[in-house]
């Protein structure tokens, strides 16, 4: 009896510890692939860039530790501030317009009575999936100063030719228009998903109370979409401050660097092998974008 029960009582705790250990380890095993990829492609580059930002490394030879020199250079360099200024102006030209436009279009597309709703949705998303290089070529032709369709149309009303892409006054608005045309469809999709999560009974109750469409939009849709709008604002803030491809293919940052965005300015340092300054520039950009994103999140929470 003893001989048969004793081993069983000794084995029981061992058998129990195994599954418990496995249960404890299981989550870590599941997240391990992500952590490994995250460490390799996010954490490692982050720390490597941080280290790089304190050197004068140009991609070749030995690097010299220069302390805060790269940061000091950037913070006293008018071109760096001008690139931030360009991005800020583009943000003002793009994000508020895009959000207002996006909400209105999303509300229209969310209307079940709208005919050809699917077609409109496709039409709005097509620019987003069209290759930028092709769009850029069309933009260059459309906005050509002497032979572009835009000036030809405006000429019908007696307006003079405008250097849309060749004057520092108009290059930013023209670039903003391209960005708006290309990405508003994506914002509409995000806002549509937010709209569809709003309970229809709220609108029914409002209608019974005699609220007009405009009142419903302002008092129901906008407040209940606040989080989605906030998400879209943060997303587009990131996109505008990192904007690179649009000025690269349309204006090459000109005229006079008036469309050299923060992302383009960073790219210039990297391609000119000024890697230390480029790394410092990217960190300053990260800090700025993070601060802006936190600000928007805070503002939203305050409203909640």
């Amino acid at each position, binding site marked *: 009896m003893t001989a048969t029960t004793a081993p069983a009582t000794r084995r029981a705790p061992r058998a129990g510890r195994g599954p418990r250990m496995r249960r404890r380890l299981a989550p870590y095993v599941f997240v391990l692939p992500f952590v490994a990829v995250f460490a390799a492609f996010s954490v490692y580059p982050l*720390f490597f860039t941080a280290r790089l930002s304190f050197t004068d490394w140009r991609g*070749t030879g030995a690097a010299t530790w220069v302390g805060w020199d790269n940061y000091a250079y950037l913070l006293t360099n008018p*071109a760096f501030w001008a690139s931030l200024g360009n991005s800020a102006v583009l943000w003002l030209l793009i994000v508020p317009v895009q959000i207002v436009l996006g909400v209105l279009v999303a509300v229209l597309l969310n209307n079940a009575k709208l005919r050809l709703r699917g077609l409109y949705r496709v039409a709005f998303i097509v620019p987003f999936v069209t290759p930028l290089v092709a769009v850029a070529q069309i933009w260059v032709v459309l906005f*050509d100063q002497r032979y572009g369709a835009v000036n030809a149309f405006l000429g019908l009303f007696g307006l003079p030719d405008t250097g849309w892409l060749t004057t520092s006054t108009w290059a930013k608005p023209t670039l903003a228009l391209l960005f708006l045309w290309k990405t508003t469809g994506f914002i509409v999709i995000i806002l549509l998903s937010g709209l569809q999560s709003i309970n229809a009974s709220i609108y029914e109750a409002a209608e019974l109370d005699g609220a007009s469409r405009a009142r419903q939009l302002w008092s129901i849709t906008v407040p209940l979409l606040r989080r989605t709008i906030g998400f879209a604002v943060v997303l587009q803030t990131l996109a505008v401050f990192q904007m690179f491809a649009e000025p690269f293919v349309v204006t*090459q940052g000109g005229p*006079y*660097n008036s469309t050299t965005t923060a992302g383009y300015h960073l790219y210039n340092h990297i391609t000119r*092998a000024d890697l230390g300054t480029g790394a410092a520039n990217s960190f300053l950009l990260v800090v700025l974008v993070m601060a802006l994103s936190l600000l928007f999140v805070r503002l939203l929470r305050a409203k909640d």
Partner: protein
Amino acid sequence: MQRHLLRRRALLASAGLAAAAPALAACGPDIASDEDSGGSALLKAPDRTEGEITIWDRSGDLFEVFEGVIADFNAKYPGITVNHVAVDIDAKLQNTLITGADVPDGVFLDDAKVGGFTDYLWDLSDVLAPYAADIAPQKLDVNTVAGGVYGVPFDLDPGLLFYNATALEAAGIDVEAIATYDDLLQAARDYRDAVPGSAPIHLEQSAFLGQLQLEMYASQLGTSIADADGNLRLDTPEFERILTFLDTVRQEGLGTRAEYLTPTDIAELDNGNQVFYPWAIWFSFAPQQVLTETAGDWRATQLPAWDAGGARSGAMGGSSFVLPKDGPNADLAWLFYEFLMFDEAGYTAVWGPGDVYPEGLATSIPSYTPAADPAKPLYTGITALGGQDLWTVATEAGAQIPGGTPTPAWWSGAVDYLGNDLQRMLDGDLTPQEALAQSSEDIQTNLVDRQ
């Protein structure tokens, strides 16, 4: 309680990552070593003719041209397999050289960029020695850094004066009489009088290409933006003279402001308003491929001289072949480039009539002078240029390009300053003196001093 536990775990995980990251960062390319990763290394000609080489070229027409020459190369070196790859070199070369992973044996590279990679490249002085005396001096200059030669010179891009012969003839302008830039100004005034509303001379509106064209004018005067030691030499009488000429064209309304071959530029070329185009030989692409109304009307002649009897051409752009030290068979890649550039069978296949360019590669001439012999044309009559013998014009112009015009490693960075200030001047916002003084100061502060 659970939230506390989660926070503690998150904190521990973050701390773990933070602790691991510096160790991970240390695994990257060695950026803090005192040991110089570069240093001069002379490439020696190989004593073997078997192996595989990887060659990077830009995609496009030149890739196809070089692809077509591989068979000729293999006829001479059957034991060497050429792995020819079309690559976005600007995007990939820097990272590839830094990491040392999958480094090619030979790379096609803009002359202006060679200086930025020399620590990673073979010094070709030794293998090029038998040919050096016969290579255009300007091409050796742009590939020479601190006494080493880091590129196999490919093409020479002489500046030429392209002109609309039909339009000028109709206006009674004799192009043969244009010997100096003063003559060109007078011819432009005469044309504008004959064709009211025209703006005969091209004024480049792209900051990058404007600076490249400025270097062409400077090359004619035997100078460039910096000397062989990297010292700036911009605020000089030569550059002031060039900018004053351009400013005169602007002030008198003799110039068409447009970016190279954008819709405005093409339209103004095709409608006869813009009839003089001082540009590199590669403008010949425009009448061949882009200008629909005036193809066949265009011709090329040597550039006017700054002073009577002076050089009638300057270099504008150009490319070379570099051989990375980490390329496993760079010595065999040298044999490939030696064949392409210095072997008659090779350069004839590159520049002569072929599948890609049925009339020959008429957008450049060889930088190897025995290959650029006016008496032995590799291409001749170009239909889009009214059957003109462009070879003779270009080789005679190319032979006049002065040397002593190196390209600094920071050349493209200077576009933010010199390129932009040149455009400001052409917009009437700066005088030539102001543009040069301001550019010099900015380039010195932001580029030269930070090297």
